[in-house]
């Protein structure tokens, strides 16, 4: 297959990833010839070739890892930290178009780059007594979506009680319809509470605290 990342884009990504600190692992789940599975696999492999700190591991839905990371859609992938620990950072569907930005941010953040959250964020999440899932529905043509995805992922990296997942709405119409998505970014917290648009981290925290 032809390369997804042309020379210019590859160079930009390589430069961007050069300050990565720790090793990370991408665990990709695919199933047969599912929509965008091949492209997602190829994207992850091409990006991993641009940094020696990125390893890609491929699994299927029957693997114990799929259960461990609660994977039900394909393609999906999670990003593990340098100790191989899942910190709740998940992508469902290919992070192409504008979403390449939330993907690259997540790689940097997971490798130990400081994303500048105030310490009070973790303190507020410490009050959680159960796990909270944050879904961020996106389209690849949405310029306001990557910051919303990054916020969800950074909250997940800040606290073990939070899981953040990007869901590419066109690839997964069923779950998009289930949550009645026809405008993005649409943020669903714990399956019930909704935020629309690129929201400050405070808006996420208020919704999460309302659930606690």
């Amino acid at each position, binding site marked *: 297959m032809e390369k*997804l*990342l042309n020379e210019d*884009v590859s160079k*930009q*990504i390589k*430069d*961007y990833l050069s300050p990565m600190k720790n090793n990370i692992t991408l665990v990709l789940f695919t199933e047969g010839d599912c929509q965008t599975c091949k492209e997602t696999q190829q994207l992850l492999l091409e990006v991993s070739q641009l940094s020696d700190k990125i390893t890609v591991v491929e699994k299927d839905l029957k693997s114990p890892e799929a259960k461990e990371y609660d994977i039900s859609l394909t393609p999906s992938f999670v990003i593990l930290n340098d100790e191989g620990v899942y910190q709740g950072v998940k992508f469902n569907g290919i992070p*192409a*178009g*504008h979403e*390449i*930005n939330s993907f*690259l*941010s997540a790689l940097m953040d997971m490798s130990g780059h400081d*994303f*500048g*959250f*105030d310490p*009070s964020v973790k303190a507020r999440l410490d009050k959680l007594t159960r796990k909270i899932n944050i879904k961020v529905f996106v*389209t690849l*043509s*949405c*310029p*306001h*979506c*990557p*910051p919303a995805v*990054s916020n969800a992922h950074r909250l997940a990296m800040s606290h073990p009680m939070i899981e953040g997942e990007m869901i590419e*709405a*066109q690839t997964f119409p069923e779950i998009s319809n289930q949550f*009645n*998505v*026809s*405008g*993005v*970014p*649409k943020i669903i917290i714990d399956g019930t509470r909704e935020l*629309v648009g*690129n929201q*400050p*981290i*405070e808006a996420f925290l208020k919704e999460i605290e309302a659930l606690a």
Partner: protein
Amino acid sequence: MFEISVDKFKESNIFETTELFDFLVVGGGPAGLNAALYARRKGLKVGVLTPEVGGQLHNTSEVDNYIGIQNIKGGALSDAFLKHTLELEVPIKTGHFVIKIDKVDERFEVTLDNQQVFYAKTLLYATGGSPRKLDIPGEEQYANIGVSYCTTCDAPFFKNEHVIVSGGGNSAAESVIDLAAWASKITVVHRSQWRADQILLDQHKKIPNLTVHLETQLKEVYGDGLRMKGVKAFDKVNQKEIDIPADGLFIEIGTIPKSDLIQHLAETNEQGEVIVDRDQMTSCPGLFSAGDVTTQPYKQIIISAGEGATAALAATNYIIHHS
């Protein structure tokens, strides 16, 4: 296929200091970035605070009225502005929203949502606008379940469906062109006549299944509770109510100025637009404003950029005369 913007800059550690800025810019659209460029060239200690770089440029698919640059995507023009600004090593802090602006003892205090506070001798407020709403029954109920304010974001949800575009300016005309790639049928409903550039309206002639209702006022969005199903409107020429069943409504009727953070400091007009003088200075000395948040009636990229330049030059003079 890949719209990379994340790698275009690295945050400067200038924002870790508590040093006083000469000129602090709130907003990263054309006005804010051009102001930062001009201020930096003048040798001012400048910084930009913005949740996202590019502002409303990202809601624009094609820009073809910025002289010297033909047929460029809104995002690409934003990248070009950013690249030029960064070549002068202007520090830009993104990812955080400004939540408070005050003036204390002749200096401005700007607080971010992470509680960081910055201080400046002069401040440019260039936050632009957020999409204006129609304020009709059903609009809020069906927001994001049929009603959309971002064509580039949401057009893919309306593949082979019938959508309505509300508005008569360039944004509405461009929205029609963008939606033509997805929707099977497009209907424009606008309360008066087209104000859009003729060059855009000429492109509409190539779009099949485009119907235009001018002099028609939207009255109501209706649906089944889960999704919108259509709109009711009033045809002012024929003096009759019309019902248009449709799957989506894209509202492109301009912006509401995001002036809330300085309304306690500077005068605004009835619409909430910040009132400025010929130097782009507000009624609050040292506080400048530029772009779509001001009373300037023609909301255009090149005009916002020009206003940013004026503000930076005027702020330079202001600092000389007040220090």
